[in-house]
């Protein structure tokens, strides 16, 4: 599927964006997206997610940007013929029908007429809009617009699909349909770049994620890698914290309100759990549950967007140069 020789579908280096010399929307972004994976970009409001996507799509001009997309420098227009994009809050011309919309945007992506006709029909079918294809966009609901939007992004049979909040306004059935489409695209070897707030949605489909906070990449990697440190066993027992807890190196206890205690073992090794169970059985302690636990994407996200110094979430929005200078002043 990939015709370029690069290892990555997207390989960004030192991407900076300063708006009107005041707001530092993006700060030296380093990000890598492998071919054929579904990549999720997360971040609080104003973190710079859409700005980053728009820079890749040439809608916003970067202050500085190195790196490649599908093997070509960022901003290389001909490469965009191989990219499908659905912007957030997109607005299709309401005088067009769904089918005309697909054909119009496909023509702008240099898709020839017979292919446009054929693909419009098949993609309307794929997103469940074939019966609405000949109706005006102005009569569509938000969910329908999203479905047509996804179809629009696929009209040029892209190698890279960039979707900004694709499930925004879509009902649960529609979300599942969109998820299925994304997985199908991945199975066809296409790369999907998702920008979304719906962490549970992303967790279900993404191979790798990056979290953007105040214009910087706070963390990126596979969900398993990013949550590896948080993987543990939790044993819920009746009664107080046993006195022998300190005898096990990775074990700690947390009391619960209903006379229960949770023993937390900082390991995913099942072998290390067995001596603890033996000890509990020997003291006739009631064991309610034993389960391996891993941090959810939401936990990971919250951890990334929380200032460790204050324990509070970072202020929404990008970092302004004023704020940065202030911080630098505090530092010195």
């Amino acid at each position, binding site marked *: 599927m990939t015709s370029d020789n690069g290892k990555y579908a997207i390989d960004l280096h030192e991407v900076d964006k300063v708006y009107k010399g005041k707001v530092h929307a993006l700060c030296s972004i380093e990000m890598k997206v492998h071919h054929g994976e579904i990549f999720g970009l997360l971040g609080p409001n104003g973190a710079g997610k859409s700005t980053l996507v728009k820079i890749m*799509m040439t*809608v*916003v001009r970067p202050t500085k940007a190195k790196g490649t997309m599908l093997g070509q420098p960022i901003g290389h*227009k001909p490469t*965009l013929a191989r990219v499908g994009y659905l912007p957030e*809050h997109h*607005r299709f011309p309401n005088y067009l029908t769904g089918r005309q919309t697909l054909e119009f945007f496909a*023509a*702008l992506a*240099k898709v020839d007429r017979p292919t446009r006709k054929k693909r419009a029909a098949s993609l309307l079918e794929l997103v469940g809009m074939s019966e609405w294809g000949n109706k005006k966009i102005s009569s569509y609901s938000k969910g329908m617009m999203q479905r047509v939007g996804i179809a629009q992004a696929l009209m040029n049979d892209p190698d890279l699909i960039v979707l900004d909040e694709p499930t925004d306004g879509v009902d649960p059935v529609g979300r599942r349909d969109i998820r299925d489409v994304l997985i199908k695209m991945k199975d066809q070897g296409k790369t999907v770049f998702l920008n979304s707030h719906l962490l549970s949605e992303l967790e279900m489909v993404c191979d790798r994620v990056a979290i953007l906070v105040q214009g910087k990449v706070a963390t990126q990697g596979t969900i398993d890698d990013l949550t590896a440190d948080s993987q543990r066993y939790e044993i819920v027992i009746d009664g107080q914290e046993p006195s022998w807890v300190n005898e096990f190196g990775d074990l700690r206890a947390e009391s619960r309100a209903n006379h229960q205690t949770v023993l937390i073992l900082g390991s995913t090794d099942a072998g290390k759990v067995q001596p603890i169970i033996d000890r509990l059985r020997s003291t006739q302690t009631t064991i309610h549950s034993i389960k391996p636990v891993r941090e959810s994407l939401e936990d990971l996200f919250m951890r990334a967007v929380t200032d460790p110094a204050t324990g509070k979430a970072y202020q929404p929005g990008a970092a302004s140069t004023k704020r940065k200078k202030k911080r630098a002043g505090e530092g010195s």
Partner: protein
Amino acid sequence: MTQTLALFIDAYRELNARKMFWITLILSGVVVSTLLIIGVVDNPESTTSFDSQHIKVMFWETPIPLPLGMDLEDILKGTFVYLGIGVWLTWAAAILALISTAGIFPDFLSAGAIDLVLHKPIGRLRIFLTKYVGGLLFVALQVTVFSTAAFAIVGFRAGAWEPAFFLAIPLVVAFFSFLFCVSALVGTITRSAITSLLVTMLFWVLLFAFNTADEVLSMPRVTNEIYVEKLDEKLIELRNADDANSKIRVPVVEKQLVEATESRDLWRKWHSLIYGIKTVLPKTGETISLLERQLIEKADLPDTTNNNNNKNLPSISSKMAAVGVRTADVIVRMEDIYLNRTVTWILGTSFIFEAFVLSLACWVFCRRDY
């Protein structure tokens, strides 16, 4: 080519979806239908050649006599130029077109719409210029339908198949483009259809004001120029005369000449200033009058030079009239001035203005983040 064609088809669909386009087209049909109902009828009660023929509207004869030397063809051509183009297409329809197209760029640049186009493998400059030309389609289609209908009606009714009718298409489109480029620039900068429309209308009023000032100031300028020439002639005549009465009048005329020269120079200065400003602005009025130059033969028009009514126009003082300054001469010379303004000056400088405004709009469009 696929992309450009797609943008043009989209521009057509956008216009097609606007009610204003169809309303204007229907009204164009009404205006062009006047060419069907206007006619000429003989007046059997006439005793003079002056009112031997009257103009009729449908079946009703009006008391308006057909001007001397004119026939049905001239009447129809005049109706096309003065009513169809001069009043309808370049005033009423142009206002409707500006209202209808003022939203093209603000809508196109709105959040969520522009992203869908900009991320395609097509340059921003090409997108902007194609969209701009697409906006001109409104007027291009209107004037094409109007001119074709007028060409056919005049051809069938008067037997005059005049290809110059189609000159209206590029001229009216050029006229509209001089205004639309301002609309595009303001729409691109402000992304507001209302602001774009208001600024464009103000700009048009400004052009109209300069055009009027040009016409108004050219009258006293030309009158004073002729007055100075006549005084010069008179002075030579008096100096060459042998009689004593003439010798006495020489200092009086010399004084008049000095005053007239001062007055002429003053009017020249102000008129030249307005002319200079007009040079850098688009010339909407003169652009349309190019069509008149082509379609209306001067010989076909009623002769105004011997029209006695003109002699008493207030602009000619008795002092001027005494040395032989005639309103008719002033009108003829003013007409000559306008006719001597070259197509290069009229269209060339207007297109330079349009190119400048468009370059600015392109620069803003290409540099902006959306």
